[in-house]
């Protein structure tokens, strides 16, 4: 029950937003309060249930259409809990970071909260059709967030995003339907380890599902929609867009494709690992070439998503744990970097790396946090991303040595472009005289960035905080695919 409440609180929040008068301050406070509720509920679940997420009070199973065996089935498990928490957190951060949204504020929050319903729902779904419905509920809100509040290029970006991901998810739905019809149910629990399907049928079903999920991630070369969308969005939308949305795809891999269709995905796994490596290396190279700080962060973000693919494809406990953890740590660091890019662009009036420089002197907080975020992105030990990337590579190396080695090369490449970026932006002399007078991050901006930075350090030092919760979920996946 508490899971259902958490999922639908933002819907009530969205309605509340629309009913409130158009006054900026009360609206912002109300939105903060609404966004805080799911986060507090999630924290309560963490503290009260911790490693026993399969408690009946967290699940609901209501068969809705008997003849199709389709129902409202939700629950939390180790695989989804981290993302469930991250969704609640990043929505709150997005509300805090919405200082760059000035007009139609209440509609902005309402649409953001509707997207939150969909995202929370995906990470708690225990039914394929429900999973798809929540998956699609995020689509229109994201389209509107980019299209209404983005920059000049927003229309094209929004439509590209919509067409790509709608095509992907429609193909995925076709796979889900075929799966459900062949197996006679849509309940994920009953479908575990193939739901009685033979190997050929599993492969036929897995192919469209994988395609749809990889478009959402996006795996290179299905990433055509990504750059425009990331660059055109307002910063607060970026937080959610890069922190949560790609994980709908990767979570689908880990929660649906791999454990439910183990024999079906098996022939694709080496390619999945290869896709991961391509993401890592391609992302790093293209990020290197970006003149725009936001585009650099966007490519860095797709790059490190590759580790999730690699870890998920490994099929062993280390790799899967790494992948599940990387979903969360990736969200933390990419949200942090996008927030800081927003701060820097707002103060200096530019995002061009060439025009920036020496910000450490003028903006010690923003510059320092940017350095921290970049170091997290490089996978520096002591920060959360290190743990998850390391585990993904270890697991990936065990299963696919070539891909594993190439992926570790990716770490070196990402260190190169991130250090180069830091050297140009944060350190060095101040090149433009106008930046002599720029101010540091404001309190609201700090309020958006600092919690992310703190969590990056916290999970870097104590990864067990998350790993202990996710372990039972990962073990269930391992047993479904017949390993260890």
């Amino acid at each position, binding site marked *: 029950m508490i899971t259902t409440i958490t999922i639908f609180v933002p819907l009530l929040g969205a309605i509340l937003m629309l009913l409130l008068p158009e006054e900026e301050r009360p609206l912002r406070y109300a939105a903060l309060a609404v966004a805080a509720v799911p986060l507090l509920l999630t924290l309560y679940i963490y503290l009260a249930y911790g490693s026993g997420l399969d408690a009946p009070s967290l699940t609901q199973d209501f068969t*809705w259409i008997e003849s199709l065996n389709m129902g409202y089935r939700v629950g939390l498990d180790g695989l989804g809990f981290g993302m469930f928490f991250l969704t609640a957190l990043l929505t709150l951060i997005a509300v805090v970071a919405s200082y760059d949204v000035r007009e139609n504020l209440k509609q902005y929050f309402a649409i953001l909260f509707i997207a939150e319903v969909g995202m929370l729902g995906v990470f708690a779904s225990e039914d394929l059709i429900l999973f798809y419905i929540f998956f699609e509920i995020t689509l229109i809100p994201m389209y509107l967030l980019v299209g209404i509040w983005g920059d000049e290029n927003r229309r094209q970006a*929004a439509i590209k995003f919509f067409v790509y991901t709608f095509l992907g998810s*429609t193909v995925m739905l076709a796979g889900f339907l075929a799966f459900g019809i062949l197996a006679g149910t849509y309940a994920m629990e009953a479908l575990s380890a193939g739901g009685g399907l033979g190997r050929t049928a599993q492969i036929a079903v897995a192919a469209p599902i994988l395609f749809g999920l990889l478009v959402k991630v996006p795996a290179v070369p299905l990433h055509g929609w990504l750059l425009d969308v990331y660059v055109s969005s307002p910063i607060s939308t970026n937080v959610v867009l890069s922190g949560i949305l790609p994980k709908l795809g990767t979570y689908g891999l880990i929660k649906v494709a791999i454990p439910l269709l183990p024999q079906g995905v098996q022939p694709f796994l080496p390619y999945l690992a290869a896709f991961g490596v391509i993401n890592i290396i391609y992302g790093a190279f293209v990020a290197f070439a970006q003149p725009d700080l936001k585009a650099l962060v966007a490519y860095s973000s797709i790059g490190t998503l590759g580790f999730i693919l690699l870890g998920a494809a490994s099929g062993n406990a280390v790799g899967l744990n790494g992948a599940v953890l990387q979903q969360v740590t990736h969200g933390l660091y990419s949200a942090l970097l996008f927030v800081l890019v927003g701060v820097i662009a707002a103060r200096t009036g530019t995002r061009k790396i060439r025009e920036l420089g020496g910000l450490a002197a003028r903006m010690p907080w923003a510059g320092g946090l940017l350095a921290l975020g970049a170091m997290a992105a490089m996978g520096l030990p002591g920060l959360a991303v290190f743990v998850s990337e390391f585990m993904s590579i270890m697991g990936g190396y065990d299963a696919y040595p070539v891909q594993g080695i190439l992926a570790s090369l990716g770490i070196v490449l990402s260190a190169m472009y991130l250090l180069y970026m830091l050297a140009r932006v944060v350190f060095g002399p101040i090149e433009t005289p106008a930046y002599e007078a720029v101010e540091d991050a404001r309190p609201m901006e700090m309020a958006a960035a600092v919690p992310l930075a703190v969590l990056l350090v916290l999970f870097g030092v104590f990864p067990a905080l998350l790993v202990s919760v996710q372990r039972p979920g990962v073990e269930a996946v391992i047993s479904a695919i017949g390993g260890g």
Partner: protein
Amino acid sequence: MVTGQTFVALLPELVAVGFLILVLMVGVFFQRSVGVVAGLAALGALAVFGSAAGLLAAGFSGEFFGGGFVVDNFALYFKLIVAGSAFFAVLAAARWSGDTGDAPEYLTLILAVVLGSILVVSMRDLFGIFLAIELATIPSYAMVAFDRRRRESAEGGMKYLITGVVASSVLLYGIVLIYGVSGSALLGDVARTFSGSLSPVALLGLVLLLSGFAFKVSAAPFHFWTPDAYQGAPTSAAAFLSVAPKAALFAVLLRILLEGMPEARPTWTAVMAFLAILTMFVGNLAALRQRNVRRMLAYSSVAHSGYILAAFAALQGQGAGQAVEAVLIYSAAYAVMNLGAFLVIDLVGEDAKSFNGLFRTRPALAASMGVFMASLVGIPPFSGFWGKAWIIFSGAQSGSVLVYVVVGALVVNSVLSVPYYFGIIRNMFFEKPTLDAAEPPGGGALKASVYVLALLTALFFLLIVPISALAGGSGLG
């Protein structure tokens, strides 16, 4: 034998006739007070809805007039759709028809179409079906041509009349041939003849019958009257005619095929499969090029006829029962979203550009239109998604390769339809307002209808369980 039961069975029809006469007569005396007449007509639609709902709740069913008229859950369900759509059409028409000065006549026409449509879904006799279809169609010609101030209205009405008459004669010819082969027009007797291999005459009769229906439901290649008729017609007429009589026609076609020719299933599912594929593609490809929202919605209604025909193609194998459910669900789902989309035109305008910036000037209306457009594409959780999902569920269980192709075409067409529906969303949400921000006065009932329909579209999933329960007890499928 006519007993008291017969009058109960005919209650919705009798109520419709009563209100039809009442509206016409009261209209003579209250020519100027549109409120009274429109209120009466709306009450009439509600009364028809209520009486059908009452019969449904009471579990009333039976055959009357020697088996030619049947009341079952299936028929009552479609009476609900027709009467419900009529209610919104009357609300939408009230102000506009008042401006024409002929409100009573226009509203009477709506009730006449209602009468024909609720009769047709209960008919089990081919000639009765034909007469009821004509009873619904002839007033609709007048409705399309009713706007005397616009030349397109007369043009649309004329085209609709000529093609409609041709369609009627084709349909009648088909019926006569079927009657000639089987010696009876009752569907039960027809079923005995349409077994085993079909004689050439019976086959010709079937093809002509299906072609006649294809004309009436605007299936390609017989759809060409649709864009002109709907573009010329008053908005309330286009909204109502694209929903209510069409649902009734699909319902009676389903009855003819399932009760009258179950043995000829391989033949007619194949015909339906080809019609469905053609209609979906023609409708969507033509809609892509439209700048006029009314015309765009007209082509969209062609495409949606194609989707429903896909459900007809899936009436075989394991999925047959689900396919009947799909027709039931789709008809209601389409009714709420399409009525809503048409009604918004009266509040905003028919040029796609007039939707620019609606989100900034009238956010609630823009959100409602956004819901209708997303629903027409088939995005969950809106009504259109459930309609399409049921067609896919049934098609996937049919076990026929041809139906798999149809289902594939349906999925492709859903993606194909994104640009034109989302073009409206883009204009509303992403563009700067071009119109003056001031809202046109009045239209309160119209706006309320739009909001109610948007809510119904969004919460449609709550209706699915009751609808599929109805389908199970309908006697069909």
